[in-house]
């Protein structure tokens, strides 16, 4: 049990002592992953809603595609974004590689299909219930999509959370496009990977506990919010 007790003590010391370096790492992780999730929601939720209620050629193909992209390997996304952002790449002129912005881009690309596919499922279920009423009232399909996105806002919280969970937990993409530069692009997962390989297990495990705590806390908040919404709006 020794190897678990020591990191627990270390973790507690780091958190209680408000260790500045640790705080920077945790805050950067949250900033990058929350921004990426926000972008993914803005892009993915309308896509998901239109896939659910829309009628256009290629819709089924797109649904299969987005479902498939949910399992996109982070390292592959990282590699592709790396190629796009590298000096010689098409977006090289912006000099984004090895910056938090590059990490946001990579995670947003990774998470958008997840948010879109889960949103599609939520909205498709709503559409079966609302379809005739909305059509009777004269709602166009895009208007119906917007209405259902708003109506399903509390269920969609779960989709957003699933996306965030994926973003905050992945290591491959941010490692490649961020470069794990100390004080600049070092986040929780990349630090854990690095410290483990250096043999500093207590710090790695301490960060692991914080990562799990963050994810659990966010899920608890979302769960409470959904419960409240269900009691309040039905």
């Amino acid at each position: 049990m020794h190897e678990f007790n020591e990191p627990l003590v270390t973790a507690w010391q780091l958190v209680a002592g408000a260790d500045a370096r640790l705080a920077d790492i945790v805050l950067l992780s949250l900033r990058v992953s929350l921004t990426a999730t926000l972008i993914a929601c803005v892009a993915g939720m309308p896509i998901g809603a239109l896939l659910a209620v829309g009628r256009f050629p290629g819709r089924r193909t797109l649904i299969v595609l987005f479902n498939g992209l949910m399992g996109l390997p982070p390292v592959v996304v990282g590699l592709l974004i790396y190629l796009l952002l590298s000096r010689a790449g098409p977006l090289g002129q912006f000099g984004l590689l090895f910056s938090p912005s590059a990490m946001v881009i990579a995670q947003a690309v990774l998470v958008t299909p997840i948010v879109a596919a889960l949103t599609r499922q939520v909205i498709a279920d709503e559409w079966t219930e609302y379809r005739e009423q909305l059509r009777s009232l004269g709602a166009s399909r895009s208007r119906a999509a917007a209405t259902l996105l708003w109506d399903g806002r509390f269920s969609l919280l779960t989709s957003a959370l699933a996306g965030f969970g994926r973003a905050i937990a992945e290591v491959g993409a941010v490692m490649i496009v961020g470069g794990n530069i100390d004080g600049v692009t070092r986040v929780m997962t990349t630090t854990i990977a690095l410290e483990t390989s250096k043999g500093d297990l207590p710090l790695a495990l301490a960060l692991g506990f914080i990562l799990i705590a963050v994810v659990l806390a966010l899920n608890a908040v979302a769960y409470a919010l959904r419960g409240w919404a269900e009691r309040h709006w039905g």
Partner: protein
Amino acid sequence: MSAAWLAVDRLSLTEGSTRIIDDVSLQLDAQRTVVLGPNGAGKSTLLRLIHGLLHPTGGSLRWPQALTQAMVFQRPVMLRTTALANVIYGLKLKGYPAAECERRARAALAHVDLEALAKRPARLLSGGEQQRVALARAWALEPELLILDEPTASLDPASSREVERIIKAIAASGARILMTTHNLGQARRIGEEIVFIDRGRIVEQTPVEQFFTQPQTEAAQRFLKEEIP
């Protein structure tokens, strides 16, 4: 209203090899028409074809004069917002300015005796109250034709009576009513004319009193006997 407001001409809806609506022709001229028939006769489908929610596989609908329509379903569909906002939603889709939407919606809720619950979350209202919100949402649009698909099928007797009162009030305000019901008493109280259908076909179309006292077809006689033991 003696001239027909809708002529249904050889309407059909086929799904696979099943004929849900089978070569239906009829003229609707009564102000209040009730469609009766056994389960699975195609009543709801006929209403949906007329409302435009379904497209016929054959035949056509001829409207001598285009009528604005609204429809109320068996299960009221409420958005996750207040009762008032649910009524406003329908008006907003028709393009009324915001102030006008609010004014009309409040008036419609008053017509169905729900002003007191205007700000309550619609989905937490009782089934009867939700159906009244749905009626207010339809009424606020001031439709020239109101279609109702078994609006009281899942309601208790008290709520059913209230819904009936509202349907009559909407009819009194000038809207044509086209509805289905399983409640023969209700059909008799609301309808002027009965359209009786069975297995996707029109069996008879008779003024309401005559339908209940001297049904012209054997199928209708059998139906009435089964429904009123």
